[in-house]
């Protein structure tokens, strides 16, 4: 699976974004994380193979661009 890492100072939480390369909300989420210097990884699911798509880990799943939920989960103000 093609997982891209975006480096950042904040590494307290393991963050993996399942995104679509064409989705604006996904883009905003990635920008938010980068802006807050959160270390994260992402997978553009639309560019992944069908086999890879089945391997989705959903331990703490936030669906949608939910800024408040993201801030709470990442312990950001």
């Amino acid at each position: 699976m093609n997982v891209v890492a975006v480096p950042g100072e904040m590494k307290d939480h393991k963050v993996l974004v399942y995104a679509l390369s064409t989705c604006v909300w996904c883009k905003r989420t990635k920008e938010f994380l980068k802006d807050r210097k959160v270390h994260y990884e992402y997978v553009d699911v639309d560019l992944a193979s069908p086999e890879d798509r089945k391997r989705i880990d959903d331990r703490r799943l936030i669906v949608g661009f939910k800024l408040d939920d993201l801030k709470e989960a990442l312990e950001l103000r």
Partner: protein
Amino acid sequence: MNPEESFLKDLLEGLKKNEERYGYPSCPCRLASGNFDFDKDIICPCEYRDPDVEEFGTCYCGLYVRKDVFESKTPLVSIPERRPREKQMRAYAMPEETPSSVPSSTAGITAKPVKGELKLWYCKQCGYVVFREEPPYICPICKAKREFFAEIGIGTHTLG
């Protein structure tokens, strides 16, 4: 449509990319299976747009918005997915189909146009007009299939 210029621009680019790779403008915020018949509900404008705009003020990807959102009186937020979960899950599991495996109903199109030659096409069902080399797989307004499109000659007569 979305009042924010950069947002709108990104949405339209996403739509364009989907049209290029799947052959139809599938919603940029949803995973397309690549299967035309299966994805019909999420081809823009999607089936879920109207109830979503009415209830939440915006469609799922944020392209179409309600008047108060357009006027920035109400904030634009991300909304829950209305597409049935089973369909969402199946899209993940389906093997991708390339545009070459588009249903044979498109075989009825006569003579391949000369590369780069743009023509006027109109939808016989709703009158939508588009200027392209070939008619779209589906009418973005009324969802009529490709066969419903006829060419308009530059002049007055319609062909076919």
